[in-house]
């Protein structure tokens, strides 16, 4: 599968009469965007805001972040199975409005959402303080069940991203990246002397706000399977909105999966990247056993010499991580794990809930329990009072002056376990 990703570098976003890209500026027709986003009987209102890097803006509670992309050639459309037909994607050409992100907010669904600060100390911990954000405050009609509320907002965000992405369809990209993974036997032949590497891509699937979708299917229901890395770039994997904000992968980070990008970087040089195995993190023990068995079997079948395993979330998914590691290492295949840590506010406790001696190569993306103080922002989009109840917050997190004192957990993407950021934790 071969995909050209054409990046259109956006320097500025502003409202305008038509939604279009002109000389690096994305103009957005505010009403039309609100209309497309709100095309659902279960949505009562949509408000559109812009939030740019360096502005004193806080967005809370954030549900998902999505990158505007559009298929230019090749089968299917973005986010297949959700807002496009379920064609297999990942081939042809896709255009990206680089530098822009759609951020969804609105009344809280559960405990598990997070915040983005566009300035101040909090901005250093989230990748989305560096993007120009089109913020959609989506409010559902009264009386929606939580599961439905989540679904409605998720789809609204995807529609908005696709709508904006369309503005890049006929624009010449500033640069084009080409990614290619061939069918297994051909790919093995291409670099016969290099070690074969598979990426084991764990998806959080524990229920409301803890889900992920693959071609529109709740990943809880999948048996681990093979996926070409380029499929992910076209939105084959979508976040079911955030659990603990710090380490639930927003859709944006799936689209820009850094493990895939960095494996491609060394592809043909130090390793032969033969593809991804997606697996889940379910809530029963038999599911965990089955999925890790299948994952190990599939990795072995593909002939991998080494794998990178990325976790999503924490707590019981630590067991999925440990099972995957143990069972794959047992087959003589080398593993590197990526996880974040929950070592307590003082950093003195055990960071994971489960453990295996075979896990001797771990990348840490930071201790999510560490406390951060976020000064008040001039503008708050959303509902600041939820700072006291969302994961990582505590009673009194929201100060009278509008400052927030909470765990890093509360910040979108702060300890992202795909390794999107620079954060790590060290033994001291």
């Amino acid at each position: 599968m071969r995909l050209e990703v054409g990046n259109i570098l956006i320097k500025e976003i502003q409202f305008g009469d038509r939604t279009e890209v002109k000389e690096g500026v994305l103009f957005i027709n505010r009403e039309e965007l609100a209309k497309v986003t709100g095309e659902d009987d279960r949505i009562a209102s949509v408000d559109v805001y812009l939030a740019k890097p360096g502005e004193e803006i806080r967005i809370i509670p954030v549900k998902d972040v999505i990158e505007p992309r559009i298929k230019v050639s090749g089968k299917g459309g973005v986010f297949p199975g959700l807002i496009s037909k379920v064609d297999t994607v990942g081939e042809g050409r896709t255009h990206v409005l680089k530098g822009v992100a759609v951020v969804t907010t609105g009344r809280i669904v559960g405990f598990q959402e997070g915040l983005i600060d566009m300035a101040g100390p909090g901005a250093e911990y989230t990748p989305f303080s560096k993007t120009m954000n089109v913020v959609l405050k989506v409010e559902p009609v009264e009386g929606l069940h939580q599961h439905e509320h989540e679904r409605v907002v998720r789809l609204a965000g995807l529609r908005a991203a696709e709508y904006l992405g369309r503005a890049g369809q006929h624009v010449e990209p500033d640069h084009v990246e080409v990614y290619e993974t061939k069918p297994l036997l051909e790919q093995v032949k291409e670099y016969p002397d290099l070690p074969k590497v598979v990426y084991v891509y764990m998806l959080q699937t524990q229920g409301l706000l803890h889900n992920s979708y693959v071609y529109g299917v709740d990943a809880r229901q999948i048996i681990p399977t093979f996926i070409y890395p380029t499929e992910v770039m076209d939105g084959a994997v979508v976040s079911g909105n955030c659990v603990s904000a710090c380490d639930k992968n927003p859709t944006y980070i799936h689209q820009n999966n850094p493990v895939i990008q960095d494996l491609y970087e060394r592809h043909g040089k130090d390793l032969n990247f033969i593809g991804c195995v997606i697996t889940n993190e379910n809530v029963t023990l038999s599911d965990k056993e089955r999925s890790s068995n299948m994952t190990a079997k599939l990795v072995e079948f593909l002939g991998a010499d080494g794998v990178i395993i990325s976790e999503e979330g924490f707590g019981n998914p630590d067991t999925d991580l440990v099972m995957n590691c143990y069972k794959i290492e047992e087959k003589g295949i080398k593993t590197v794990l990526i996880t974040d840590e929950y070592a307590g506010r003082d950093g003195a406790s055990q960071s994971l809930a489960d453990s295996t001696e075979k896990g001797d190569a771990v990348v840490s993306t930071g201790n999510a329990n560490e406390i951060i103080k976020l000064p008040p922002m001039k503008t708050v989009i959303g509902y600041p009072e939820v700072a006291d109840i969302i994961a990582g917050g505590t009673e009194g997190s929201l100060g009278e002056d509008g400052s927030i004192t909470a765990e890093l957990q509360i910040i979108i993407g702060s300890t992202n376990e795909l390794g999107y950021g620079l954060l790590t934790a060290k033994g001291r």
Partner: protein
Amino acid sequence: MTIRIVHYINQFFAGIGGEEKADHKPEVREGVVGPGIAFQQAFGEEAEIVATVICGDTYFNENMAAATDEVISMMEKYKPDLVICGPAFNAGRYGIACGAVAEAVVDRLGVPVVSGMYPENPGVDMYKKSAYIIETSNSAAGMRKAVPPMARLALKLARGEKIGSPEEEGYIPRGIRQNEFAAERGSKRAVEMLVKKLKGEQYVTEYPMPVFDRVAPGPAVKDIKKAKIALVSSGGPVPKGNPDRIESSSASKFGRYSLQGIDDLNPENSETAHGGYDPVYANEDLDRVLPVDVLKEMEKAGEIGSLHEYWYATVGNGTSVANARRFAAEIAKELNAAGVDAVILTST
């Protein structure tokens, strides 16, 4: 301004005597004593050892609480900016005394402590989280090598400078995890680590896998029909409205709730405070997390002696082991006092 340092040593290093003088009671002397001379030389003008507190190792270990109080009150008068304990090398009781003093200094005086010990000294494992313990050789012959890194680290701490890694500074890893920004993003570090692992080259894991405590099993309950059973849960079952505001993640507290007049948990009287799982099922019927309905029936039918009138709950979502250990100790104390024979602990 000169940094004020107080030094803690035992009777042997103070030149009072060996084992026969180990019951020496705490005393304080102005200025340097014994190994303090070498430290003072290393500090030069920048810091001054204003006092030395001396205590016999046996006395300290046999009267730990009282000796700690005495030593701390002696130190307090000198308003230290930093305290040095030892080094204790591989002397076990001296190491424990240095560690206990260090812990008390950090807790009560709020100033940093530097000590020095051989890694196998029992004081290391007991107190490495409180003090920076420089790794030393196993005997006093290593004094000359121990002083420079201890002195260097002491000055850095007293000046409030950033402390480097255990390898850079020479201290024994304290097991404290601290965040920092790396030069490369996590995914790139992972790929690099995998390439090295595949080539058989050396790599360093960023997180050594954790190790957990073990406890001996409690004895079996002899007669369940006479036993008082209590319910405890980390699944966040709380009365409707979460009256104690237990956090949805990283709980800092637990709650104790009465079962009086409750035979069944339902959406009117209870809910979950847990942010780590889909709450819909628990909120429909919290007996799915805490089996109150069944146990109340069993109590009425005489299948168990009784159900303790309170249930205990916290949220086990991202909650640190240290907090969980503290909750458990407090809950166990209350359950013991209430004459509870056995506990059913449910987790989500």
